[in-house]
């Protein structure tokens, strides 16, 4: 399988990365080189093979559903480019 320029632009939008026409054209070649490389996986017989979902044969650890942490609003917004009274600020999303 390979991607065309329109697909590259669609994927870039899905990934929320702005691309110029020139960048998209360059990416088309690079992505196709990688997709060409992974094509060889089609040689492998995977009939009846379970996909790996956990690398170690262990039960996912569970914890009590209780509050163990909190009151850290100032810490959480400390690195935000824009915040006001412990709220993150974003461009208006609702008209």
């Amino acid at each position, binding site marked *: 399988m390979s991607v065309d320029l329109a697909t590259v632009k669609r994927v870039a939008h899905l990934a929320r990365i702005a691309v110029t026409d020139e960048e998209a054209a360059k990416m088309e070649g690079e992505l196709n080189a990688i997709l060409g490389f992974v094509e060889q996986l089609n040689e492998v017989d995977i009939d009846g093979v379970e996909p790996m979902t956990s690398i*170690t044969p262990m039960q996912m650890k569970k914890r009590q559903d209780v509050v163990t942490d909190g009151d850290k609003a100032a*810490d959480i917004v400390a690195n935000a480019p824009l915040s006001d009274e412990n709220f993150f600020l974003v461009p208006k999303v609702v008209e």
Partner: protein
Amino acid sequence: MTELTSLTIAEAREKLRSRDITSTELTDAYLAAIEAANDQLNAYVAVTPDIARKQAAASDERLARGEGGALEGIPLGIKDLFGTEGVHTQACSHILDGFQPRYESTVTANLFADGAVMLGKLNMDEFAMGSSNETSWYGPVTNPWRRKGDNKALVPGGSSGGSAASVAAHLCAGATATDTGGSIRQPAAFTGTVGIKPTYGRCSRWGVVAFASSLDQAGPITRDVRDAAIMLKSMASVDAKDTTSADIPVPDYEASIGQSIKGMKIGIPKEYRVEGMPQEIEDLWRQGVEWLRDAGAEIVDITLPHTKYALPAYYIVAPAEASSNLARYDGVRYGLREEGKNIIEMYEKTRAAGFGPEVKRRVMIGTYVLSAGYYDAYYLRAQKVRTLIKRDFETVFHDGVDAILTPATPSAAFGVADQDMAADPVKMYLNDIFTVTVNMAGLPGIAVPAGLDGQGLPLGLQLIGKPFDEETLFRTGHVIEQAAGRFTPEKWWS
């Protein structure tokens, strides 16, 4: 008296405990070495002298009272991927500009609890994506090794290039690193240092910037095998904050050093003899086999039939996980923000400006293989192939093999701005051909320097072990080290 910065962790530990030296002296010696070398090597992206001197003074007080942890007063470098409270933590990406976490990663917290001193944050490929340290926002790291009679700058490997270079150049006693496809072992091999990627789940991933969560593991890069054992003991822990952290106590790895490998079964996988591999690597591998046989190990030929599919499967699984993990960099909560006329445009411009080309490529591949209609053909198939790769290893271990010996890399260090690799991303990816299988199967792997090539550059061998059997790797790695000796670059940089 020998230069303080030439001491291994084990040697410095003895001198600190016997009060021959102080941590303050040792720390100052390293800070001076960094100051003199970093303009040329670019191994550190942030030096933290105030923190280092404060920690060293506290260590000296504890040592004076006859107290102190396993790494008391030992100056370390920390890869920029580890969250360090109030200190530069940017995964060497532009998108994390100015980020200083309000928390400490479990691994660094463990090191500090054992008395370690932090000299600063180390350069790396952006978000640990790369095999040459050239994708860093802060520019490439220069390998302290050069070819004989040649001044051309070589890469230290990646992604933990700053970690490997700083250890090789004696700009820290040891360094933390991480390995998703070979990012500890390949740079260790390129710089004549020791690097171990432990079993998945051995070191907590909590507070480490995520790349591919089912593959990422932290580990140390050090000057010798004993130091790697000392550092891993402190880095590893059982951590409730990481649900994939294994509930298995951390053994005393150092006790394995010097133990006999007599009767141990070492597997030699025929699939690692790849086309176009330099004769010197082939010879080195054969030499490694001889060393282990001379030490009493039994050598057996083994087959790992799905080896060649590990790298292509990796380039589906790792980008898929990365595209999901890196979705959090949106210009809202931390780091860089580029304004746009609406929120979507703000996201798109921020990510376009903040991510470098390699990161964009991988996020794009990941987004594509997970997108509607392609999931089964790519991601699901890759995860099934991954099961087969793991099964290959399980079969040979079940048949009695204790560890597997392979080359660490298909070549020695190459030049900065290599034209072939710049033109074809897949060429760069092939650096990880011998290391990536280990991540796909979640196994431990260690790279140990084993010799120099004809141009005077270090080459390494890799040992692969059973899950949570790092002890066998330290034991066997030490045998290789005893036979091969240790390798230090000539100091040309200050």
